């Protein structure tokens, strides 16, 4: 333990660099799995203790064997600082002009993958634009856009294997699109028609697909986080060579389930990646009213979870970080926390007007100068993989595809009446049969009050 303190005090620069690339033997040594509070000393923020303090501990060279492991003793009473002067750095590969930051180590994306990712980002944005408008026109009841967070959606999805299990929050439609869940399927869900996989039972954007290993979204925040630990544990026990991935916003990290899930995953050594989209706003609550820690990445240390902060608007940075996280999660059987820094360019949902609580120039800055789609387009254009013609063709095709999907979804029947009662239990119990009979009687008796033109009774 003392060795660690001495080493860390001499290696601030090294630690910083390692936080960015999170590879190498030092990190492995530092966060090596150990039981109980053995890691207490290791979990300290390296920036929060000054050198004198560490040296003092080092000179004493005395440990006491507490339950859970040895802890060094010190006669100096010193509280650990609640915050450091320097914020934890954010891993980034691309400049906003699409050029590569020099001296960054990264895996080069091939042309095909890069272009597919770009196309998926544009598809997501276009689908959002038209479905948002459909809600404004009263054609669907509700919608949530992913504007500004397309890079996190698509790049993280591309870095995963289709065998990994995803437990989304609600702003990750792009992950489904990347996995092959079609625009038509998304639209069917939003219209709640008979082809909706969820049988029209949930509000729009609550997607899920067994075929694509994406567990159906639920509205309560953060509940998927502790479930992801259980999913990951199962994948580990079955030796599937896959991980679980739980997405969350920064607001959801204030929920008890965030704590429960991270702690469980760490203790159970579950291969799960927690991807937190820190987009600055939980509906109208800004981050400084949400927590006082250095974002989400700092919380990982408290749970003994290896963590990284990444520029969520940088496609390559997100891709690299999630890919590395996946490798570590599976090969070392451990959870990894990824904090992707971004901005929610759209309103929280169609029930929200964010201009009421944040300045429009702030939104505009992130919508234009920091647009992940614009930055990535510059990158692929610099590589000669993309042209203006391809750009207009893509937008034209995607628009057509989305409009057709909306038209088809809108014209379709609603789910049959019996679906109101099925799937509550595996077999319908007598009380639900009874209720189904009673509603059918009511429909027959009062046909004017129960129009049945758009569904099968």
């Amino acid at each position, binding site marked *: 333990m003392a060795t660690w303190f001495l080493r860390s005090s001499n290696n601030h620069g090294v630690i910083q660099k390692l936080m960015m690339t999170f590879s190498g033997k030092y990190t492995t040594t530092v966060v090596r799995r150990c039981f*109980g509070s053995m890691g207490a000393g290791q979990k300290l923020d390296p920036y929060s203790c000054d050198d004198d303090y560490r040296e003092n501990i080092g000179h004493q060279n005395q440990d006491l064997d507490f*339950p859970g492991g040895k802890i060094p003793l010190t006669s100096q009473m010193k509280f650990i600082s609640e915050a450091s002067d320097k914020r934890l750095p954010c891993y980034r590969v691309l400049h906003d002009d699409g050029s590569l930051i020099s001296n960054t180590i990264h895996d080069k994306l091939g042309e095909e993958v890069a272009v597919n990712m770009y196309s998926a980002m544009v598809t997501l944005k276009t689908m959002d634009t038209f479905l948002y408008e459909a809600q404004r026109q009263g054609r669907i009841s509700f919608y949530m856009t992913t504007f500004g967070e397309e890079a996190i959606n698509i790049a993280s999805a591309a870095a995963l294997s289709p065998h990994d*299990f995803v*437990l989304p929050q609600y702003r990750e439609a792009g992950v489904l699109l990347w996995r092959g869940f079609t625009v038509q399927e998304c639209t069917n869900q939003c219209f709640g028609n008979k082809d*909706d*996989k*969820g*049988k029209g*039972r*949930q509000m729009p954007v*609550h997607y*899920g*697909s*067994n075929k694509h290993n994406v*567990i*159906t979204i*639920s*509205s*309560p925040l953060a*509940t998927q*986080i*502790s*479930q*992801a*630990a*259980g*999913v*990951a*544990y*199962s*994948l580990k*026990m*079955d030796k599937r060579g896959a991980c*679980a991935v739980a997405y969350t916003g920064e607001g959801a990290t204030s929920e*008890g*389930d965030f*704590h*429960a*899930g991270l*702690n*469980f995953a760490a*203790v*159970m050594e579950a291969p799960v990646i927690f991807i937190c989209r820190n987009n600055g706003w939980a509906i109208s609550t800004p981050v400084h009213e949400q927590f006082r820690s250095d974002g989400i990445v700092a919380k990982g240390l408290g749970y003994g979870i290896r963590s990284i902060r990444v520029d969520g608007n940088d496609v390559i940075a997100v891709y690299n970080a999630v890919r590395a996280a996946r490798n570590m999660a599976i090969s070392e059987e451990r959870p990894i926390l990824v904090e992707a820094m971004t901005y929610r360019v759209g309103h929280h949902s169609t029930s929200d007007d964010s201009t009421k609580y944040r300045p429009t120039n702030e939104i505009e800055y992130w919508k234009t100068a920091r647009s992940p789609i614009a930055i990535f387009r510059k990158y692929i254009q610099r590589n000669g993989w993309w042209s203006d013609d391809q750009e207009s063709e893509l937008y034209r095709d995607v628009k057509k595809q989305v409009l057709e999907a909306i038209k088809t979804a809108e014209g379709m029947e609603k789910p049959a009446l019996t*679906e109101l009662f*099925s*799937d*509550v*239990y*595996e077999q319908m*119990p*007598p*009380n*639900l049969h009874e209720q189904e009979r009673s509603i059918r009687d009511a429909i027959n008796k009062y046909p004017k009050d129960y129009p049945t033109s758009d569904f099968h009774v």
Partner: protein
Amino acid sequence: MGSNFRRIGKLAAISSKNQSCRGLSSSLNKNDTSTKSVNLFSAINQALHIALDSDPRSYVFGEDVGFGGVFRCTTGLADRFGKQRVFNTPLCEQEIQHEFHFIQVTFLCQEVYPLMVFDVQGIVGFAIGLAAMDNRAIAEIQFADYIFPAFDQIVNEAAKFRYRSGNQFNCGGLTIRAPYGAVGHGGHYHSQSPESFFCHVPGIKVVIPRSPQQAKGLLLSSIRDPNPVVFFEPKVISFSLALASLFCQIIGTVTHYFLDEFQLLYRMAVEEVPEDDYMLPLSEAEVLREGTDITLVGWGAQLSIMEQACVEAAKEGISCELIDLKTLIPWDKETVEASVKKTGRLLISHEAPVTGGFGAEISASIVERCFTRVQLLGPALGQLILGLKT
């Protein structure tokens, strides 16, 4: 006649110190199987051994489960099936003298707090995730009083997992076990009967056994049922004499009061339980005693008290029909209805508070179905529900 019926109600509500406690007669056919006289925790332990042994995709976990649990229900499981399938859940890993601690918690309320630091919502969230991957996740909550942090996971997640996904996903392999009900000196936080909170939730099943033999069969059915089940174990019959005598040693002075109580509990606990693998059907009530004058409905530990009330009533010439509901949701309305149509009177007894208790649901349903046949009894239409409002 009316005052006699009210007296049955009083008997059913108040546990008499002089009652003779015997295991309730069981409907199980014991032919061809070897049985052993065991108490409820041993029966649960047997069921868990069988569940783990018969399905390699089953897991058992909860606070202190790794060493056997405070009620000793999980004894020997980790040794036999390995710590990857039987494990402690976080925040209960401190080395404590468990049995001594248990006694403290149960009988000396000022010592309650040390065991309250555990992560119940994490256990249930983790269990749902595990169950969603086609496993049997058997989670133990140490006391039903501490289940509430997991209420969101149970109500919003487990219960709706299948429905909200259009049957693409389910967590039907989930079983949550929790000891419930009053015992000894448990105080507010080791005595509650929270079953009715869960009975308001479509998508889960709520099961409460009355005896060791029932507990084993119903638990195995719950574990293998393709729906999430909340399984409440009456801890009044979970005690063992071993723990009782341990407690006596620890406190040093043994009062007659404690001795009486422990002997009572111990006798109550023991029942012949087949050692093999058997299942008892869910959502099927059982008529334990046939009668013609009044129907008594209850569940869990309350059945032994109601049985005693039936015996007392018989001395006065009143013939009682006693029904154990066993599964609270979805409940067996038909059996209760048929009985009430025969007797014309209904008495429901539960340990939980009266207001909004599950007795109210039974009462309402039966009044709806059998209104013309039910006589007025007690404070409410056609029913006499007894319980404490505290």
